[in-house]
């Protein structure tokens, strides 16, 4: 705190603490590269289809099973559909599922963590629930959930939205537990600090206290688990699609494209590489980003 006030007197106007975080983040080369690649992937899958305007579902049987050419940079599949367009469409779904499921898991985890840490009365119950969820066999249960609720949900929301809701919810409610544990620990430590006591002594209500004083101070562990959450959500969605229990066949995702390509592995091994590389590189970049973020948000390291 003291060097900070000296700093501001010396030269620049007061700095937001996020600038310090950014300065530290920049020193981690892997993290910067990861962030750059992740932004590139997001732009490619969301803006890309406006530039590469071939319809991913357009069937051109004469041009089937082609290798990479200038008209089809990633080649075409067994029905002559353009692989680049399909990769973009698939990426949109995979990334959207990853981000939404991460958001849901984060919301649930933060809610449970803050409530358990702040209100002693429900702490025991909430933490036992978390332990119970951690003891559940998650992948088998995910598969079971998809099997059970696929039909009714696609009937009421249409096949694509229905499966999207199902997969996002399923991943969200099976991956909030680590966040809840970390957040609870931090909230428990925060509660003993003087500023919380000061806020309470002027009569701050619990709701206000959580929103204004507790939540901003547990932002860093939440952000780190957010990056890791994206990675697990993308992998889980691809695993479900790979097992044939994800999105319907005519609706590409990276996992589905990989699954479809394994049938033609003998003749066209390159077709497996595109979705596989996309999944792996996205997850790798997100993991590096999380690594850098963890260092950048840790004040003990940031001071150095």
């Amino acid at each position, binding site marked *: 705190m003291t060097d900070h006030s000296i700093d501001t007197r010396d030269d620049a106007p007061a700095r937001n603490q996020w600038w310090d975080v950014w300065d530290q983040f920049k020193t981690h080369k892997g993290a910067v590269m990861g962030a750059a690649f992740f932004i590139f992937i997001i732009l490619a899958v969301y803006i890309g289809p406006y530039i590469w305007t071939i319809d991913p579902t357009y069937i051109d049987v004469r041009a089937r099973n082609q290798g990479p050419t200038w008209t089809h940079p990633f080649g075409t599949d067994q029905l002559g559909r353009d692989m680049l367009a399909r990769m973009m469409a698939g990426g949109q779904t995979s990334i959207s599922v990853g981000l939404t499921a991460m958001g849901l898991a984060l919301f649930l985890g933060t809610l449970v963590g803050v409530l358990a840490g702040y209100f002693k009365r429900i702490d025991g119950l909430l933490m036992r629930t978390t332990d119970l969820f951690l003891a559940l066999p998650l992948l088998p249960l995910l598969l079971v959930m998809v099997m059970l609720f696929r039909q009714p949900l696609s009937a009421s929301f249409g096949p694509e939205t229905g499966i999207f809701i199902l997969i996002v919810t399923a991943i969200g409610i099976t991956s909030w537990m680590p966040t809840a544990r970390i957040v609870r620990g931090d909230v428990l430590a925060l509660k003993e600090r003087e500023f919380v006591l000061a806020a309470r002594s002027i009569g701050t209500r619990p709701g206000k206290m959580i929103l204004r004083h507790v939540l901003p101070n547990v932002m860093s562990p939440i952000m780190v688990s957010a990056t890791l959450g994206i990675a697990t959500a993308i992998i889980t969605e691809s695993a479900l699609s790979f097992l044939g229990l994800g999105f319907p066949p005519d609706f590409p995702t990276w996992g589905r494209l990989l699954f479809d390509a394994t049938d033609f592995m003998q003749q066209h091994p390159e077709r497996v590489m595109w979705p596989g590389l996309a999944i792996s590189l996205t997850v*790798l970049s997100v993991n590096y980003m999380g690594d850098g973020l963890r260092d950048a948000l840790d004040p003990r390291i940031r001071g150095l």
Partner: protein
Amino acid sequence: MLTYTLRRLMTAIPTLILISLIIFLLLDLAPGDPTAQLPLTIPPEVREQIRQSLGLGEPVHIRYFLWLKQMIWTEPMFYLSESASWINTPDAPRLISWQTRAPVLDTIFERLPQTMMVVGLAYIVGVLIALPIGIISAYKQYSVFDQAGTFVSMIGFSIPPFFSGVLMIILFTVMMPNDSFWWFPSIYDTTLVIDSWENFGKQVRQMVLPVMVLALQTTAQISRFMRASMLDNLNQDYVRTARAKGMTESVVVMRHVLRNSMIPVVTVIALGIPAIFGGAIITEQIFKVNGIGQLLIVSIQASDVPMVQTLTFIFAVLIVFFNLIADILYGILDPRIRYD
């Protein structure tokens, strides 16, 4: 130690009962009708009789207790009576699969050896590779070896098994010439009987690819954990004391530091065993190993509720059991934990 173990055991049993309830209720919500797959020519009253014979006539709670009784009493008693003649065979009906009409647990015990062979071996290989990597990475922190280790484990974390498996098949089965030593089969042949050295060689060769894929995941996790745990201990006062007393570097590292850093690692190894069974679902699917993971997928696709319930419950039992083992191991290795 005994009270500590008992206390852990007391929390494990209600957890298991709750999990069994969750699994049962989740599958019971199934909107699918088990008779939906049957031909439409079956008259409705016969269809109703089929439903009754599958045990669907009773209310939910009765069916749950019946299932629980079958799981924890009838089935174990049946296997006990088969091995020991003085125990009577229970006369209650066994858990029957809707798909194969055979007892669920018999099918599972047929599949279990394949899973255990591949998954178990992969885990052992992964741990054996991971431990030295972790130790050297920590001892030579920030060296080239450490950087390489970090990168490889990042890759191990990031490449999902369904891509690394397919990649292995492309490299070692599709691209490799068939007569090369480095060619490995991508399909696991379960009918192979190991009765000669030649067949033993075949068995080893067909296990290479799935074991490699699973071991990569294990290695990535355990080596990171080993490294972090070693780093925690290397800067402790007792290490300086050991060095000051003039012990050789190998004694300091291998006897003092390693022993203390193994405490959390051993528990992580125990905790990872059930997770590897979950990961094996995908690996078994890729290499066509007909283990319990593949059985689960097939049963899910066929809406075989008793089989799915039992398999999921077995996975849950594995998780709870190894959590218990990890807790007890921690208590044995680190006496401070016991007096919590």
